[in-house]
């Protein structure tokens, strides 16, 4: 493999991480909560895909993906309703502990259902097939991931900046109470934020697991952690930041492999995180935290 193919694989992983990272950054933007269960939700959506394809073999794969995405969104929504919403006025630490609890709950639930064994991700036609592009032979999902991630990000940013609902989201992210005084139902805005994050994680999981075949109950931990690092590196709360951060992490880890440092890929990601936290604690796109009263 030459350096270009490593670069493209890096962008692919970066694109997949980006779709997960957006979920972290959006939830943080609105609730100031690190949703630790988000990586597990990513894993759950992969497991759902496996069971849907196995149990409904006649269902066309496109519909199976839609069903899986709908279920993932539903689970994301329920997590918020039952684990975070009742703690709306509790200290932030309580909500974070609740998030850690949900994360273990999902892991253990999946381990119980699968018996802790690794399950084979179904072959996804088209995106799972190998093609040759720019002289590089790889699965289509590798070439497609960064493109899909960027298209979905652009759509999301347009929604947030140019629609009434997007305006409400930006308002709620700054001030719950005043948003309520405007007549915004903040719980609805928060639910929809979780739903969007879960949907993007579902898309990301198809792209990610279509090349990495086996999934077990720990499969969400590493992508979840990397996506979280990406969100922090990019500036947590910023959507473009999450994408840029994820692409940087993806490429950095892939280049590490190119230079025979595959064992050090975690070192490189965490190293980047530490450097960013020291040099620019708010991240690449992060806003200043000082606010005029």
């Amino acid at each position, binding site marked *: 493999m030459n350096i270009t193919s490593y670069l493209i694989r890096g962008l692919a992983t970066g694109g997949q991480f980006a779709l997960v990272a957006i979920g972290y950054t959006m939830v943080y933007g609105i609730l100031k909560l690190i949703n630790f269960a988000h990586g597990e939700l990513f894993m759950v959506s992969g497991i759902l895909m496996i069971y849907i394809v196995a149990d409904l073999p006649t269902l066309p794969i496109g519909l199976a993906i839609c069903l899986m995405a709908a279920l993932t969104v539903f689970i994301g929504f329920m997590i918020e309703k039952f684990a975070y919403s009742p703690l709306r006025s509790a200290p932030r630490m309580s909500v974070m502990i609740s998030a850690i609890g949900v994360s273990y709950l999902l892991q253990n639930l999946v381990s119980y259902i699968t018996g802790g064994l690794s399950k084979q991700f179904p072959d996804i036609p088209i995106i799972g097939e190998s093609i040759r592009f720019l002289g590089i032979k790889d699965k289509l999902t590798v070439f497609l991931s960064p493109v899909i991630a960027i298209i979905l990000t652009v759509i999301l940013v347009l929604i947030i900046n140019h629609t009434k609902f997007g*305006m409400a989201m*930006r308002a709620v992210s700054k*001030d719950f109470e005043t948003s309520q005084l405007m007549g915004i139902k903040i719980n609805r805005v928060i639910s929809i934020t979780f739903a969007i994050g879960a949907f993007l994680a579902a898309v990301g999981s198809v792209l990610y697991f279509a090349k990495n075949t086996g999934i077990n109950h720990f499969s969400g931990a590493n992508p979840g952690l990397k996506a979280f690092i990406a969100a922090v590196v990019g500036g947590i709360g910023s959507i473009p930041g999450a994408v840029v951060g994820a692409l940087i992490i993806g490429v950095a880890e892939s280049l590490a492999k190119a230079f025979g440092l595959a064992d050090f890929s975690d070192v490189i990601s965490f190293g980047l995180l530490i450097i960013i936290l020291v040099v620019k604690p708010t991240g690449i796109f992060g806003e200043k935290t000082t606010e005029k009263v």
Partner: protein
Amino acid sequence: MSDNILEIKTLNVRFGGILAVNDISLDVRRGKIVTLIGANGAGKSTILRSVSGIVKPVHGEILFEGENIMGLTPEQIVKKGITLVPEGRRVFPNLTVLENLKMGAYLRKDNYDNDLSYVYRLFPRLEERSWQSAGTLSGGEQQMLAVGRALMSSPKLIMMDEPSLGLAPLVVRDIFSIIRTINENGITVLLIEQNANMALKTCDYGYVIETGNITMQGEGDKLLNDERVKEAYLGKSRNG
């Protein structure tokens, strides 16, 4: 229909066991400016926040146009025609001036272009800066934006919590003249102020609140000349 647009009856609000508002009853006449004055922590803001549905009172009644609105959500209360300009302005700093105004009209399904041009006529400065993010405005401009935003909901009753707080004296004068203009255009105003002098000069009727209780009430100029009010809130001593 009764002359009172808003009637509060024996309202009780608790904050963590402390009685912040204790059996308060007050009336706001339709088309008037009514003010509540009193020291910090007397419970004034809590009353307005209860009317808005942000704070849940323990018991009492809040009648708006004769209908009990206690227990409704903030959203339902805005729909009835009540709006609150919160203390400290609370504009959305990350939204543009125009977006802030649109947020005020969030629940409206009808066309609000007329209200937008009305707000721009009241505050020409906001039109000049409509594309600027609200966080970059001066304190006075932010207060104007907060009032403009409230007007965008096309309210029958506008409640203002300390609109003069932290503003330069000239700006304070502007704000009070705007309050009068808004009122002359038919909107009832319920105003909280620490600047008791300005508030009593502007209002038709005033209530004095001390530690959760109403201790005095009367027409603005009557209160302005009351010895006890003078001493406690206007900084003039009895012998001075």
